[in-house]
């Protein structure tokens, strides 16, 4: 399992822009927001948590169709399906690798982008906490979506359509926690629900993803 994780991480690093691409997209989106809504800092401060969460979600979505597609093309997935390692575990590891290469950098970079959107100082901690709790769910749901669409030619657009409604609860609780944090309100409830979603998806979706993958590769 660790070998698989290391392999995925190494591939992401060497393929050029595994870490960078999602992050660059996140930065671009954040920079474009003030141009589109205007530079008033009060307005920016009030929408900053939501925009940063949306940016993280879209950056995550952007990298999903590479999650399994390359392995499908070069036959690695066939090996994984027949390997002694349970496919569920392999997919959980793939989700983890995806989170380390896209989710984690976003969590780290979010405060810097918060500055660009003049996020109130109380908001930084809760923005980081909510992203750290919520992005694993995004990666795991994405792994499931990728497993569903991996055999389909040009499945990328379909993947976004399938995954976006599944992202709704995570986005609502994550952005709600960040927004409440920025306004100095209590954040426990949305954070707990967000953590619950993440743990639930980590526990259950590898099974759904593995079932989908076994049906594609028969």
């Amino acid at each position, binding site marked *: 399992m660790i070998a698989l994780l290391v392999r995925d991480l190494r591939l992401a690093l060497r393929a050029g822009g595994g870490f960078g691409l999602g992050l660059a997209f996140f930065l671009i989106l954040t920079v474009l927001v003030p141009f589109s809504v205007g530079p008033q800092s009060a307005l920016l401060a009030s929408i900053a948590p939501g925009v940063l969460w949306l940016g993280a979600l879209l950056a995550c979505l952007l990298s999903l169709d590479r999650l399994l597609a390359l392995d499908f093309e070069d036959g690695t997935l066939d090996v994984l399906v027949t390997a002694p390692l349970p496919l569920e575990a392999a997919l959980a590891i793939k989700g983890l690798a995806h989170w380390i290469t896209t989710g984690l950098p976003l969590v780290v970079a979010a405060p810097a982008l918060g500055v660009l959107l003049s996020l109130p100082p109380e908001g930084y901690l809760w923005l980081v906490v909510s992203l750290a709790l919520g992005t694993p769910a995004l990666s795991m749901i994405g792994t499931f979506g990728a497993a*569903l669409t991996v*055999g*389909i030619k040009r499945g990328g657009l*379909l993947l976004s359509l399938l995954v976006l409604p599944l992202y*709704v*609860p995570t986005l*609502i609780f994550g952005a*709600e926690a960040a927004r409440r944090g920025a306004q100095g309100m209590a954040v426990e409830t949305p954070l707990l629900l967000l953590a619950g979603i993440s743990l639930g998806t980590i526990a259950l979706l590898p099974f759904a993803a593995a079932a989908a993958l076994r049906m594609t590769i028969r």
Partner: protein
Amino acid sequence: MSVWEYANPVRFLALSAKVQPYAWGLAALGIATGLIWGFFGTPDDFRQGSTVKIIYLHVPAAWIAINAWIMMLLASLVWLVRRHHVSALAAKAAAPVGLVMTVIGLLTGAIWGQPMWGTWWAWDPRLTSFLILFLFYLGYIALWAAIEDPDTAADLTSILCLVGSVFALMSRYAVFFWSQGLHQGASLSLDKEENISNVFWLPLVISIAGFTLLFLALVLYRTGTEISLRRARALSTRMDRRA
């Protein structure tokens, strides 16, 4: 004699052919009675005026939109557990009907909401969860359309339906948490206190029954079409192999 006998396409089609005329007829009767009685036979609401009458379309459409997904979930489970093709095809056949009902629910709601709430759309929990349901239907139909092999398509859409159901439920509670409601409570429920007054109740129930029968008739009809398509496909692959 068990219900599983109708998993055989031939038996299913025979039963479907017997049931369909009644379903179409009763559906037409129910919808016509419900709508005509509802539109012309009931008084205007004292606050909402005549706009209240859109509920005879709005509530049944919303009812079918939700229950079509539940029916698809059950059919998907039957397919995954017992591998009956008719079940998978029935789920496929129900999806576009559910989608159209969702759209009718959203549109009639918007038409009613404009004069009543002063807005076409509000990010209210019920409205928002319906919009998400609409997206789920779109994704489900798109996944069916995207996969060549019918058995793989049935498998993958079934899994999507299962996972989607969990997330649809979760989204519903998430949006309740996220925003305050503008939509009124349920028009019909087992709790008598919540029900609308008796004058409106009977035509509404008749209309709902009519829509449910219409849904049944449409799903039977469309499932028959899907079975024919499967047979045509099987024949043409056999021809290709021979050629």
